């Protein structure tokens, strides 16, 4: 019994230690950010591998989510004779919640885990150490560009997801289920407010982007330099990012849409 408590206490302390380390790490990354602009080529390369390569999965997922919303929304609304409001249901769900959250989860799984694995592997093969000995700061050359690329790409991916989702809903609602196309768009335009809804959705995207990329990059940097260590770090990135996104979503939604 006592053993179990001791074990739990040990784990809890470990968690606080990691949290502290990751906060200090975050500060270090922020300090290194200005130097990224001296190497635009590197930044562009990273945006490519983190953002552009995620585009396909985001677009496909976005269209499917939009289509499902269209279908489910129609089924439910038709019971109340309110099928014409389908556009609003699809648009608001995507803009306020599903867009930022699902994009962030997908991003964590695809780009986040890739970042962790890449950096972790560089640590395990002593490349980071080697760079240090060559008087090149790995923070500036490896970590900061990847962090900036992730934080930059996320909002763009979010807008793409939402746009494709709304179109998916249109395809199902108007194309397949026969709702009036004018009604779909005009209802959306009258009920979705740019500042309250879209702007807030974008802010969520930016915040999630920063958090997910921070976790991914930190876990990579903090990896135990063995193959098992890399695998565990990658898993932690996906799990912790997902939990953080969902928790933050609750907080942000409360702040934005008013409790």
């Amino acid at each position: 019994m006592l053993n179990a408590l001791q074990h739990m206490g040990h784990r809890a302390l470990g968690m606080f230690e990691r949290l502290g380390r990751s906060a200090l790490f975050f500060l270090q990354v922020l300090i290194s950010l200005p130097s990224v602009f001296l190497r635009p080529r590197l930044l562009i390369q990273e945006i490519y591998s983190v953002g552009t390569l995620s585009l396909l999965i985001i677009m496909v997922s976005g269209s499917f989510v939009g289509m499902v919303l269209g279908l489910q929304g129609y089924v439910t609304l038709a019971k109340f004779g309110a099928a014409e409001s389908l556009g609003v249901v699809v648009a608001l769900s995507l803009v306020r919640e599903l867009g930022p959250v699902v994009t962030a989860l997908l991003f964590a799984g695809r780009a986040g885990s890739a970042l962790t694995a890449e950096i972790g592997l560089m640590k395990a093969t002593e490349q980071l150490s080697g760079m240090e000995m060559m008087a090149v700061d790995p923070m500036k050359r490896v970590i900061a560009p990847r962090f900036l690329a992730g934080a930059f790409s996320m909002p763009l991916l979010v807008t793409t997801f939402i746009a494709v989702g709304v179109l998916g809903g249109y395809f199902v609602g108007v194309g397949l289920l026969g709702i009036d196309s004018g009604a779909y768009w005009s209802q959306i335009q009258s009920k979705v407010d740019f500042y309250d809804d879209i702007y807030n959705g974008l802010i969520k995207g930016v915040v999630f982007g920063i958090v997910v990329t921070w976790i991914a990059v930190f876990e990579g940097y903090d990896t135990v330099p063995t193959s098992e260590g890399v695998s565990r770090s990658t898993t932690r990135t996906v799990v912790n990012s997902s939990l953080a996104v969902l928790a933050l979503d609750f907080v942000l939604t409360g702040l934005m849409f008013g409790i």
Partner: protein
Amino acid sequence: MTTRMIEVMVGVFVAIGLAALFMLAMKVSNLSDFNQGSGYQISAKFENIGGLKVKSPVTVSGVRVGRVVGISYDSREFNAVVHMQIEDQYNDFPMDTSASIYTAGLLGEQYIALEPGAETEVLKNGDTIDYTQSALVLENIIGQFMVNMTSE
């Protein structure tokens, strides 16, 4: 992948993201009719505005001609003052036009409906509508109904 190709692809990615944002701004939100520039303002006083909100539509014969841009309380006359902005193209409402607050559909978004009167003089910027009908408050109706029932 040459560096050039990579840069092009990144450019495409950013362009797609921004285009999506643009599309959202235009088609998926009310930004396109956010042109509060052109229009003239008139006001109307109501005893009860019910659930009317700023940005609620102002219609004539069902056609949207403007929006509510401000709601305030007049403490001298003890009623609500609603400021509306009407689009410039609809500039021939007679002075005795009436404004009523109705509810749209079952899910209850409230709006102002204008019914033109018969005078020759028209409403201009800053004028007030004299004939108004307040929003229907459910409790009052039920109360009235019950009074009617018991008095029979």
